[in-house]
């Protein structure tokens, strides 16, 4: 439940102010817009990665702005996509001659607004491309991969696209790599309790004791299915069964792994679960690459977690490993 606020109406504005005050060593506010840009951006000659979405997902999205990652993040109100106008303004602030890549989770509101902004930028001669993250296997069946929503897989796609942009890759190339990263990234999650929007007193959904939700969203949406509660070991198997069935046809043995907490789930629990995830991966002959067990894309104070696999190859691994420095993720 959201407890710390002044006026819920000002929540986004105060959050942006506080974020910029805290992390002014990485980012600054985009003048006149609901968004933040990396210090030193725009970066001439480099593709600008612009990410964004509703608030309530920190570290996504503003936590991932900085060298080696995104040039800017557009910040909507809690769970509401930013408007096309705001996206447009943020894009203008960081666009370079090398072009712009929009990267965000695939949700109707985000698609509508980013698409409108893209159109407007293109009319002005800015080359903007879009790669939507569609990692959540629970949200649409195979064959309809493009319909799926984006959840924690955002992180891998942003990281890889950001590294390619920082390296100086062309817009075509950054777009191709982001698309490839997305195509090789799959997530599936479970939820144990809903989250509460600022100013409201009841959570978006509740989970009965002894039950859990499968296939959660990162906007407080309940899962696509309800189930009885299971042990960590069973949950590890359930998550991996769903993901391994989706391994790309040319998948190698190396997978980047993210066990992502949604907000209220304890780190300790996640390590217990990770133990069973790791064992199962090894048993499947897979080699977990630099696993991350952390909160990388949250849903306010929702209880639950998701597992993301990104099947790596010789092209993606160095991009994942490339240095970056942002408020929420540093690699060196």
């Amino acid at each position: 439940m959201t407890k710390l606020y002044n006026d819920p109406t000002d929540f986004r504005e105060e959050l942006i102010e506080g974020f910029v005050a805290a992390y002014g060593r990485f980012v600054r506010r985009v003048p006149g817009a609901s968004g933040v840009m990396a210090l030193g951006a725009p970066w001439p000659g480099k593709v600008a990665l612009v990410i964004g979405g509703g608030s309530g997902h920190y570290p996504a999205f503003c936590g991932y702005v900085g060298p080696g990652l995104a040039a800017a993040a557009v910040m909507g109100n809690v769970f509401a996509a930013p408007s096309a106008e705001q996206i447009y303004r943020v894009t203008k602030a960081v666009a370079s001659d090398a072009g712009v890549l929009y990267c965000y989770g695939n949700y109707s509101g985000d698609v509508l607004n980013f698409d409108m902004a893209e159109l407007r930028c293109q009319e002005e001669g800015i080359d903007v491309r879009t790669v939507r993250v569609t990692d959540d296997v629970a949200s649409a069946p195979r064959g309809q991969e493009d319909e799926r929503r984006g959840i924690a897989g955002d992180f891998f796609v942003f990281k890889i696209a950001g590294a390619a942009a920082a390296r100086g890759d062309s817009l075509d190339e950054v777009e191709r790599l982001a698309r490839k990263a997305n195509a090789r990234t799959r997530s599936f999650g479970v939820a144990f309790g809903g989250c509460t929007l600022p100013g409201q007193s009841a959570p978006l959904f509740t989970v009965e004791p002894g039950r859990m939700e499968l296939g959660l969203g990162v906007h407080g949406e309940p899962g696509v299915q309800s189930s009885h509660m299971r042990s960590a070991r069973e949950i590890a198997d359930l998550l991996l069964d769903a993901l391994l069935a989706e391994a790309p046809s040319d998948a190698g043995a190396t997978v980047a792994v993210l066990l992502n907490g949604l907000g209220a789930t304890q780190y300790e629990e996640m390590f217990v679960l990770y133990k069973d995830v790791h064992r199962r991966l090894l048993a499947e002959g897979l080699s977990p690459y630099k696993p991350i067990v952390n909160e990388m894309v949250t849903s306010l104070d929702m209880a639950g977690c998701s597992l993301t696999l990104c099947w790596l190859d010789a092209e993606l691994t160095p991009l994942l490993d490339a240095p970056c420095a942002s408020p929420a993720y540093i690699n060196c």
Partner: protein
Amino acid sequence: MGSSEIAGAVVRRWLALALEVITAHEEELGRLDAAAGDGDHGATMVRGLRAANVAVEKTSDGAGRLLIEAGAAFSDAGGASGALIGALLSSVGRALGEGPYDAATVTKALQAGLSMVMRLGKAQPGDKTLIDALKPFVDALAAQPADQSLMAAWRAALPAAQAGAAATREMVARRGRSAKLGERSLGHPDPGATSLVYLLQAMEAALTEECA
């Protein structure tokens, strides 16, 4: 007062009444959205209408121009409904232009708005969106006898919007956030269709007040 001034006053009054009724139903709209979505529909609509009201406060323009300004301001609420309702208002405003503000012109303008929203959102009737309230309404408006006043035609078309919104209860979402939850959206009316009916009702009240 000329017809253009009346029309401007109606738009202003409509936005004020719409904010009132949507604020009164903010929690209900949030709950409907929470059933299979993310619970923010009430908050987004309130934010959009607040911004729209502010935007039209400082100008004395005609109805068309006012709607364009209101739409731009509404869009900034973000989310799917910010984009769609914002685009609806602006596109109706553009089609309305300088008037005349009779039933036929308004109907044509609403048809333009409807097709803009369908083009943007790519939703079809039956997808469980605000289209399921908006399209029946626009169709019913177009079917009214040509000699009716706008107020009478609007009143006569309202039940079609209400019936359309009510029917969304039995639909499975195929567009927007709820779409991913498929079956889970069954049994709850679509929040966007529900709020659209409130908007249309507020317009009836505004027409009644201002044209009485």
